[in-house]
C-alpha cells in the first residue's frame, strides 16, 4: 500500500511538486468552473487557449523565448478578449458564446500574423505550455498567487455571482454592480487559465476547470456544495492521475483528466440528478 500510494511522492521531489501544484490549481479552478458552467460558458477555456497567441508572440518578439514576458503577454491579451467579449454580450443583444468566438478568432488570426510576419517558425505555444511534471518554484508561486487571488475575489463577489447566475435580470433590477461582477469574474477566469497553461499545459488547466464542475452538477443544485464537490473531485483526480501516470507509465496530463472524466461518467449515471435516477423515478405530480 505504501509503495503504491506514498512512495512515489516520498522518493521524488518532482512528484511532490506535481501533486502540490495540481491540488492548488484544483482548489482554484473548481469554483471558477462551476460558475462558468452555470453561465453556459463552458467552452471559454478552449477559446482562450487560442486567443492568447498574440500576447505570447509579442512577448517573444521583444524578449525571445522567455516564459515570463510570454505569460504576461498572454494574460493581457486573454483579459482583452474576455473583457471585450463580456462587454459586447452585456451591452448588445449578442450572447456571450458568439462574442467570445468572434473575439478569440480575431485574436488568433492576429497572433498567427505576428508570428509569421516575424518569420519565426518556433512553435510558441508549444514552448509556452508547460507540463505538470516540470513545476519549478516560479510556476508553483504563480499557481499559489492565482489561487489566493481567486479565492479572495470569489469571496468578495460571491453573493452577487450566485444571484447573477440564477437570475441576472433580478440582479440588474436591484443593483448596477452586475456588469462589474461579471467583468471581475472574467478576469479570474483568464488568470486561472493562462496561469494554468503556463504551469500545466492547456489540457490539464481547461480539463481541471470544467470536468469536476460538470460532474458536480449531477449531485446538487446548490451552488456552494457544488463548488465544494468540484474541488474535491478535482483533487482526487489529480492524485489518482499522477499515481496512474507513475505506475502505468502514462502521460500525466491525460491521466489526470481521464480520472476526472471517470468521475464525470459515474456522476452522469448515478448522481442524484443523473440519468439513472431520473429514468427510475417516474414524474410525480405534486399533490396539494
Amino acid at each position: 500500500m505504501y509503495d503504491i500510494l506514498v512512495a512515489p511522492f516520498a522518493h521524488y521531489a518532482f512528484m511532490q511538486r506535481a501533486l502540490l501544484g495540481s491540488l492548488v490549481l484544483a482548489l482554484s479552478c473548481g469554483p471558477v468552473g462551476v460558475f462558468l458552467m452555470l453561465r453556459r460558458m463552458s467552452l471559454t477555456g478552449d477559446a482562450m487557449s487560442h486567443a492568447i497567441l498574440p500576447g505570447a508572440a509579442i512577448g517573444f518578439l521583444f524578449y525571445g523565448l522567455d516564459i515570463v514576458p510570454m505569460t504576461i503577454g498572454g494574460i493581457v491579451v486573454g483579459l482583452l478578449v474576455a473583457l471585450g467579449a463580456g462587454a459586447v454580450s452585456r451591452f448588445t443583444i449578442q450572447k456571450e458564446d458568439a462574442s467570445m468566438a468572434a473575439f478569440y478568432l480575431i485574436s488568433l488570426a492576429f497572433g498567427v500574423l505576428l508570428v509569421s510576419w516575424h518569420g519565426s517558425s518556433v512553435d510558441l505555444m508549444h514552448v509556452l505550455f508547460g507540463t505538470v511534471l516540470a513545476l519549478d518554484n516560479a510556476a508553483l508561486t504563480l499557481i499559489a498567487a492565482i489561487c489566493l487571488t481567486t479565492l479572495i475575489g470569489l469571496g468578495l463577489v460571491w453573493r452577487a455571482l450566485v444571484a447573477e447566475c440564477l437570475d441576472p435580470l433580478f440582479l440588474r433590477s436591484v443593483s448596477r454592480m452586475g456588469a462589474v461582477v461579471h467583468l471581475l469574474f472574467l478576469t479570474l477566469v483568464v488568470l486561472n487559465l493562462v496561469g494554468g497553461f503556463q504551469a500545466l499545459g492547456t489540457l490539464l488547466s481547461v480539463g481541471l476547470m470544467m470536468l469536476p464542475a460538470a460532474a458536480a452538477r449531477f449531485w446538487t443544485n446548490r451552488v456552494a456544495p457544488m463548488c465544494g464537490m468540484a474541488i474535491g473531485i478535482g483533487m482526487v483526480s489529480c492524485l489518482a492521475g499522477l499515481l496512474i501516470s507513475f505506475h502505468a507509465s502514462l502521460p500525466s496530463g491525460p491521466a489526470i483528466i481521464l480520472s476526472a472524466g471517470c468521475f464525470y461518467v459515474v456522476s452522469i449515471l448515478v448522481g442524484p440528478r443523473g440519468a439513472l435516477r431520473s429514468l427510475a423515478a417516474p414524474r410525480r405530480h405534486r399533490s396539494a
Partner: protein
Amino acid sequence: MSKILKFASLVSLMMLSPALLATASGADLNVVASFSIIADLAKNVGGDRVEITTIVGPDGDAHVYEPKPADAVAMSKADVVLVNGLDFEGFLSRLVETSATAAPVVELTRGVTPMKLADEPAGHAHPEDEAAKQAGHHHGEYDPHAWQSIANAEIYVKNIADAFCGADKAGCATYTANATTYLDKLATLETAVKTSIAGIPKEKRVIITSHDAFGYFEHAYGLEFLAPEGISTESEASAADVAKLVDQVRHDKASAIFLENVTNASLIRQIANETGLKVGGTLYSDALSQETGPASTYIDMVHHNIETIKAAILGS
C-alpha cells in the same frame, strides 16, 4: 486548426506566385533548401555558383513550419530543391504541389540507412510515441534526424553534388571539387568527434536531452542519449519516464543533462534540480544557430555539441 491555416496560406500563395515568377537572379543555379543544416551543406558544395533560399531558417523548427507565399515563389523559381526526406518536413509535399515547381526535389537521405524508431538502442521507446505516429505525426516510421551522424552528412553532400551536376553541367567540375574539399573537412570532423568521445570514460557515456533527436549520433559514436519526451517533442512525458531518468542520474548512470535550442526547457531543469546535476549547456539538434551563435554551420554545430557534451561530462 493549423491544417486549415496551412491550407488557407497555400491557396493564397497559389494566386500570388505566377505574378512573381518573372524575376530571376544572377547565380547559375537557384537552390531551395528546406532547413538551415541542408542550406549550409549546399553552400559548401555550390560556392558562388548557387543562390540558396532557406525555407526554415536558423533556430526554427521544421516539424511545425507553416509555409508562406514567398516560399512557394522561391520554390517555383528553383532549379533544384533540396530536402531531408524521411517525413522530416511535414509541410513539404503540399508546398511542392502548389508551387508547381519544375525543379527536381532531391531527398538527401537517399542512400542513408534509415533507423527505425523502434531500433532505439537505449530501449526506451515510449508508448506515446506509438500513439503520435499513429496520429499521422510529422515523424514517420523512421527517425529523420540522419544528419547527426557525419557519415550520413557525407552522403548528403554527395547527393547535393550529384543534384547540382544534373542541373548545371557547366559547373559540375566546380561542384565536385568543392564537395571533395568539404568531404575532407567532414572526415577530419569525424576523427575529432571520435577522439573526443574516446576521451570520455565508458561508464560516463550516458547523457540526458529533451527529446530523442540524436539517435544516429548515438548509433555512430557510442554515446547513449536518454530523453523524457521520446522522439517527438509533442508527446507528453509520463511520471514514470521522469522518475526513471532521475534514478539513472542518482545511480550514477547518466552523467550530464542538456537543453536543446527549440524546446521547452522546464522538464530538463526539473530533472536537473531534483538530482543536483548541473545543466551542461544547449545542444543544437534540428536547426543551426543564428550567424552570431555558436553553431552557425554544420561543422560548428557538431563541434559545439561534442565540446559541450564532453565539458559537461568531464566536469561532473
